[in-house]
């Protein structure tokens, strides 16, 4: 890997692994004029597995566990969105206790996902200390989820008609203890994000999208809320036990990556709040209601506020044991379409954090970026690693210095 020279980086952009006969589809194609991005083209589909078709060949129940594996970070979101639709078609009344447990797992998922995001975002801007601390904290949630559901990821907690495992008062105590620790740590992250000028500068004015454009382009989740769009499915189309929870929908007016950071941090605080309410108010009762093997004919639309935004499932039954149609629209598919807009007329070095800030639900390890230099007609293919290295070098050359923030974070964490 080469280091970018600060004065002529446009001619010495570090190259990723490439082969003369390389004809692979690039995930991103950028047209660069001088330093500025003129256009972005995005190619998706490399983790297209054919899940919707596979759903039609499996029973309604088997599909719960298949759909859970659409994305390993928001697996509970997908399985919940799906069972909600099937339960609606079948006219099942899911016991309240099950809805509370679904809510609990959903919020724990949001917490782990937002901590994960903080780490990833930190990594993209060279703030690896943040990655280490947030992923360490995240392990508290992973352990808790493993304790409650039996697995760190892909919890398998849902079934059609309710949930498969109950929680005990003992576990309730563990949950509250975990929330207390995490809340204290999150306050430090909020401090760093709101007080460290290097961080604020680095994230501000980057990945900008106005409120109007966020709505027009269909942005969802924290990406939209950071542009002042007051939309959260938990509030406007409540599911599980959210209608009985007291929480705030977090919005921010910065309209940029900084805003998206603040929104996620504040959402963590709201999640701790919701989890505490679930533990305090969870009603007694059964955790499941019997579901028929054959789901009556009908269809339903289900919406769920996943950590990344609105997850939509549409299910259609023609009265058999297997669904007629299952359609999934994950939140990243909505948000990815705003990226072109966010990157236009911006620097190539902005790309890593802008992409990371929509919290994309595709692999962070393998994205190829094709760069076409309009000035000299050169074309290069960068691996994500190279692009990140270039971005870090570029920002360092512009004076971005992370060391003060790192020291501060160490101080706060190790007091």
């Amino acid at each position, binding site marked *: 890997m080469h280091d970018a020279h600060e004065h002529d980086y446009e001619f010495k952009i570090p190259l990723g692994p490439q082969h003369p006969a390389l004809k692979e589809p690039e995930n991103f194609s950028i047209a660069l004029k001088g330093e500025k991005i003129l256009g972005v083209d*995005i190619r998706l589909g490399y983790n297209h597995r054919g899940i*919707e078709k596979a759903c039609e060949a499996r029973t309604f129940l088997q599909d719960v566990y298949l759909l859970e594996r659409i994305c390993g970070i928001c697996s509970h979101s997908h399985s919940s969105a799906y069972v909600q639709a099937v339960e609606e078609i079948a006219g099942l009344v899911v016991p309240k206790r099950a809805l509370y447990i679904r809510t609990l797992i959903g919020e724990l998922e949001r917490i782990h996902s937002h901590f994960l995001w903080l780490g990833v975002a930190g990594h993209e801007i060279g703030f690896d200390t943040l990655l280490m601390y947030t992923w360490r904290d995240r392990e508290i949630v992973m352990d808790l989820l493993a304790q409650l559901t039996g697995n760190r990821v892909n919890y398998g907690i849902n079934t059609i008609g309710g949930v498969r495992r109950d929680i005990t008062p003992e576990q309730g105590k563990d949950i509250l203890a975990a929330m207390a620790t995490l809340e204290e740590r999150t306050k430090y992250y909020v401090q760093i994000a709101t007080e460290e000028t290097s961080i604020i500068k680095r994230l501000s004015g980057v990945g900008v999208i106005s409120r109007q454009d966020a709505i027009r382009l269909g942005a969802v989740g924290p990406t939209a809320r950071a542009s002042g769009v007051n939309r959260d499915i938990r509030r*406007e189309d409540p599911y599980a036990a959210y209608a009985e929870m007291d929480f705030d929908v977090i919005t921010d007016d910065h309209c940029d990556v900084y805003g998206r950071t603040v929104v996620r941090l504040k959402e963590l605080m709201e999640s701790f709040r919701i989890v505490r309410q679930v533990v305090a108010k969870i009603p007694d009762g059964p955790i499941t209601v019997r579901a028929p093997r054959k789901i009556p004919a009908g269809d339903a*639309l289900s919406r769920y506020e996943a950590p990344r935004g609105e997850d939509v499932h549409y299910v*259609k039954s023609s009265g058999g044991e297997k669904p007629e*149609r299952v359609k999934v629209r994950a939140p990243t598919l909505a948000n990815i379409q705003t990226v072109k807009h966010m990157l236009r007329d911006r620097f190539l070095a902005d790309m890593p954090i802008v992409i990371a800030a929509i919290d994309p639900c595709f692999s962070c390890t393998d994205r190829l970026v094709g760069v076409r230099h309009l000035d000299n007609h050169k074309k290069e293919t960068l691996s994500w690693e190279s692009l990140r290295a270039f971005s870090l070098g570029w920002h360092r050359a512009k004076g971005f210095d992370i060391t003060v923030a790192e020291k501060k974070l160490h101080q706060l964490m190790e007091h």
Partner: protein
Amino acid sequence: MSYEEDIRQETVGRFDFLKDSFKIVRPRRLTLDVAYEKFSEVFDFLVHQGKFDILCTITGTDEGEYLGFIYHLAREGGVTLNLKTRAPKSNPVIQTITGVFPGAEIYEREIVDLFGAKVQGLCQGNRYPLTDDWPADEHPLRKDWKPSDSSGEEANHA
């Protein structure tokens, strides 16, 4: 009157032929079925007068002789409307809605790839989600399409 009733009244008031197909399934869930010749005007009305400013996604379905298209619209108040229409499989031509919802592009490309819909007015661009070397006449989500040896092993579950 609820949002749902209001919307029903306004829509049916404007388009009398919809009075039987406009259904309030439950709070926040509306559904409407329209023949494709009338789709454009009903769609424009719902988006502009009905204030359905969110397009959740577009679902393609295989209905035998027809390809079905469900436009999942939503708006403030969490009210959603499944706007259903269809076009004959022999000539599954529909118009793009990207002029109204730029984000519809990816959903339209999906129904082109997976169902073989022909969306007019869709600008040049990468296909999604299939590879460039995927055979042009194979649409995996059609009911008569089965995974062959070339694209993977036979589904052997359930």
